[in-house]
């Protein structure tokens, strides 16, 4: 029941939002919807956590053995929660942003939420693919209509790029489906498939491409900085905070347990791409002057680490990925909120045009500094827990022969991330005020509220990660055991 509600509430409300013409009303409406969704997600995790509440299975396509089957299990819980929390946060934080045709904007935002939640709770491969694509369509329109100058071309590239990947994945899904013992799209059937090694090999690449483009892993990342830069910030938040997690989630749920041999066989090349990406993106981030691009590249680096942790196959690394998906979502949304506040106030995101904000807007500065620190994974922030576990997992992996090298080289990104993050803080907040920032004002109450909640979350999760680890523990064990059980 809970997962169905998670999908239906934003869907219905999103469709209704098309009809609400007043800006104020539609804002309130979407905020309320997102709050309700959040409450449902929290209820599902905290109150109604018995399987019967969290699992739904309705006949959908009997001829194909595909059912409308949704499960909120250990893996999806955190991501549902993230989506649930992120949306109200985004709506509140961007309350003062104005869009032309606000009803369309908010409706599409809610529809995108439907897609995202659907991806996370779908336990049927076909349904998963459905939602996977559905999340993309509203994103396409949101970016293309309300984005920056080069929005049309950039978003189009984003769309086609991800579309190519997902089509290849569709081929993979169908192939696996043909070889399931009971000819079914159900996740359980997918997990029972036992394909020969070389088949798994090329299937691995089909799935991998889709997820790698979405995450995005180097060298498939070039759509991402452009898209983030051009999208309206509220959308960027969803894209980077939640949507990119779809890729990681996809690997964990649909790639690793289904094609373990493929993963073992090609884990090293994939992991190498991740490591190169981590360093590469960090180095490139050092050169960025646009705040959005900087955060975008930093996100590439961080997502690379998640990929790395999965591809070298270690239990603790996967555990780290699970909680890092959540943490990274929170942190990067925080980051975007700050960027949005800066852009809205000064009309620029160029670091070279800013400066000295710490005097004028100390609260903003503090928020940014804390979020940035979480971004560089300083201990006692949430990101540290995840990164620690992931790096640890990489280091102690038994699946890869090069795991030491991966860890050490990947570790350099820790240093590089400090470099570009501190550069950013320095350029934006320190030094003397520029002509633009001379009369800056500090942030408003609603923005402060969201950021404060985020910060508290960041610290609490950084100090006491146990609940998150507990929540995902079984899912990790399940995946990990499947990754090993089918070894030839």
């Amino acid at each position, binding site marked *: 029941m809970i997962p169905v509600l998670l999908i239906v509430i934003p869907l219905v409300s999103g469709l209704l939002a098309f009809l609400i013409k007043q800006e104020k009303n539609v804002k309130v409406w979407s905020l309320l919807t997102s709050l309700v969704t959040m409450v449902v997600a929290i209820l599902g995790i905290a109150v109604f956590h018995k399987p019967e509440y969290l699992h739904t299975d309705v006949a959908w396509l009997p001829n194909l053995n595909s059912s409308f089957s949704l499960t909120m299990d250990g893996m999806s819980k955190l991501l549902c929660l993230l989506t649930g929390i992120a949306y109200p946060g985004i709506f509140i934080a961007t309350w003062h942003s104005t869009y032309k045709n606000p009803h369309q904007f908010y409706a599409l935002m809610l529809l995108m939420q439907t897609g995202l939640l659907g991806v996370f709770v779908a336990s049927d491969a076909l349904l998963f693919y459905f939602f996977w694509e559905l999340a993309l369509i509203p994103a396409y329109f949101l970016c293309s209509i309300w984005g920056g100058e080069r929005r049309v071309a950039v978003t189009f590239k984003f769309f*086609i790029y991800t579309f190519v990947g997902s089509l290849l994945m569709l081929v993979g899904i169908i192939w696996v489906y043909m070889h399931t013992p009971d000819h079914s799209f159900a996740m359980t059937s997918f997990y029972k498939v036992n394909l020969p090694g070389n088949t798994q090999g090329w299937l691995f690449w089909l799935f991998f491409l889709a997820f790698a483009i979405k995450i995005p892993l180097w*060298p498939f990342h070039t759509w991402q900085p452009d898209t983030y830069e051009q999208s309206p910030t509220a959308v960027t938040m969803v894209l980077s905070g939640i949507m990119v997690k779809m890729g990681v989630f996809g690997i964990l749920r649909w790639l690793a347990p289904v094609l373990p041999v493929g993963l073992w066989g090609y884990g090293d090349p994939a992991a190498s791409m991740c490591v190169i990406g981590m360093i590469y993106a960090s180095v490139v981030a050092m*050169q960025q002057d646009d705040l959005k691009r900087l955060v975008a590249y930093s996100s590439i680096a961080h997502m690379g680490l998640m990929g790395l942790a999965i591809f070298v196959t270690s239990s603790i690394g996967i555990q780290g990925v699970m909680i890092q998906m959540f943490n990274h979502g929170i942190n990067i949304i925080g980051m975007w909120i700050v960027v949005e506040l800066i852009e809205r106030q000064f009309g620029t995101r160029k670091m070279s045009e800013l400066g*000295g904000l710490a005097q004028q807007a100390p609260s903003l500065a503090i928020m940014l500094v804390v979020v940035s620190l979480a971004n560089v994974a300083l*201990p006692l922030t949430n990101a540290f827990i995840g990164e*620690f576990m992931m790096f*640890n997992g990489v280091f102690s992996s038994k699946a890869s022969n090069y795991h030491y090298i991966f*860890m050490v080289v990947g570790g350099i990104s820790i240093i590089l991330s400090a470099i570009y993050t501190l550069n950013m803080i*320095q350029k934006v907040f*320190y030094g003397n005020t520029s002509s633009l920032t001379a009369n800056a004002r500090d942030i408003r109450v609603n923005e402060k509220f969201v950021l404060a909640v985020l910060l508290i979350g960041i610290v609490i999760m950084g100090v006491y990660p146990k609940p998150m680890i507990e929540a995902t523990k079984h899912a990790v064990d399940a995946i990990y055991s499947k990754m090993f059980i089918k070894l030839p």
Partner: protein
Amino acid sequence: MNVLQLVWLVPFFPLVGFLINGLLRKQLPKSLISIIGSGMVLASFIVSVLLFTEVKQGNTAVVNLFDFISAGNLKIPFAFQIDQLSSLFLLIITGVGFLIHLYSAAYMHEERNEHFGRYFCYLNLFVFSMLLLVLGANYLIMFIGWEGVGLCSYLLIGYWFKNTEYTNAAKKAFIMNRIGDLGFLIAIFWIIAKLGTVTYTTTDGAGVFDLYQKLTRTDVIGITLLLFVGATGKSAQIPLYTWLPDAMAGPTPVSALIHAATMVTAGIYMIARSNVLYTMAPETLSVVAAIGLATALFAATIAIKQNDIKKVLAYSTVSQLGYMFLGLGVGAFTGAVFHVMTHAFFKALLFLGAGSVIHAMHHEQDIRRMGGLAKKLPITHITFLIGCIAIAGIPPFSGFFSKDEILAAAYTKDKLYYILGIVGAMMTAFYMFRLYATTFLGKFRGTEEQKHHLHESPAAMTIPLIVLAILSVAGGFLGVPEVFKPEAHWLEHFLAPVFAESARIKGEVHHLDHNTEYMLMGLSVGLAVIAILVALFRYSKKPELHEPAGFGKVLADKWYIDELYNFVIVKPLNWLAKWLNSFFEKKFIDGLVNGVGRLVNYSSRQVRLLQSGLVGNYVLLMVLSMLALFVVKFLLNSK
């Protein structure tokens, strides 16, 4: 209830102070801020003293607060370990910390309210992190504190954030530290990979120091080297020391607290804490000793030609930290810790003294524009002098005892270490008294206005000076060498349980005979006195005011190490970044991606020409395709 269970209170108080000052910094008046800030540290100090009395009786404890990370087989609790070593550090941190807080209240009085609050909030956060570092019962908690102090250091160096140079220095400090941190982190992973735990020691013998025998030789060398990489970052050793002199951009009390007394000694603490592992890896110890010695000498040479009062002290700190590592490297763990303690006293004293001078001189830091301050600032003068004597190693001041212990151990290990060490000691004496002489003796060389305003600092500043001076004088008696009085080395006995395991591994240590030891002491003191006299003679009347030339300029410019790093690392990295960003990313990768699109467009433009509009061509093409398919079917695929 066991008093030791209260250990969490120690970091708790500064944390509370941090939160209150941080959140209410605009609302609270400055006086209240300083009372909260200092008071919390004082409270910690009191608890530390309580704990210390308990520990002195031989009670130690590991206090588990909650599960921090627990995934799979890895269980890392958030736990504090209170034993001799940590309790000693607690006293230093909270004690010296309190004094410096007190001092800061006066020193920073000119700041605006919110910045004043910000300052104290950072400072409290620093104390909190440092306490985590030393209290942590496992490497991960230590690492948390480790990075935490790095952060506070960053924040405090960049406290005056309007100045880009200062913020650059802050950045540099953080990044340099991060390089070290990576080493530390890898070491932690290595330990986890091999032993499955990072807890130091447990009652059921499942800690790192209980299981160390499971480590192979490679493991232990690797782990200790990596830990040492971490230590070089935090404790400013070659090659990662360059951040520390720049860190003097922060307010002077910060330099005293963080960049002299406490944070920079974290590396020594870490190695002392891991003494068992290091004892298992003599190769690493040699590296530690060599690096330590090299740093000691290297920094000393630079310090000789510096003219910024804080820079001199900074290089002196680097140099002294080098001594501590030398001590660790030659196995004198107690000696190193001892030196940490005495150094905390006298270096804090010197920095605060310098701060007092700077305060008096209206933020003038160049010693060439000072001179003759002895009369105007009597308390500062006397306490500063005490600090100088202590650092120069003149008995019975504290520096003598600790330095001597290290040098004696170095002698036992390798005579070359000793000789080089003593050269360093001589240089220390020389540049400290050069500083002293140029600053306090001779004629005043500042502006009239400065002269007019010259006055002794307020009590809140002088009291810490006096207390620290007393400690600098008396601190040494905690570790009187055996030669003077058997069983008088209280510290060694106090710390013995901590180093017991390594002592067991090392087995019987060769002790110097008393004559040799007296001789060595005499030599070092004698040389130091000579160096002091030379310095006083040269600089008290005619200070060196011109710009140094020749070799002196090389020293004054710090051997051009910053430039070298800039040239070898920073520039290439920037260049690489630029190249990647402007060429590789845009032209190559994105070019490829867009190239596919362009290829489609291009082929579209070409392929559509097939559609020539002429029926004849169409039919011709159709016939040709038919031919081709016939060929495929009948000739190629003739099944």
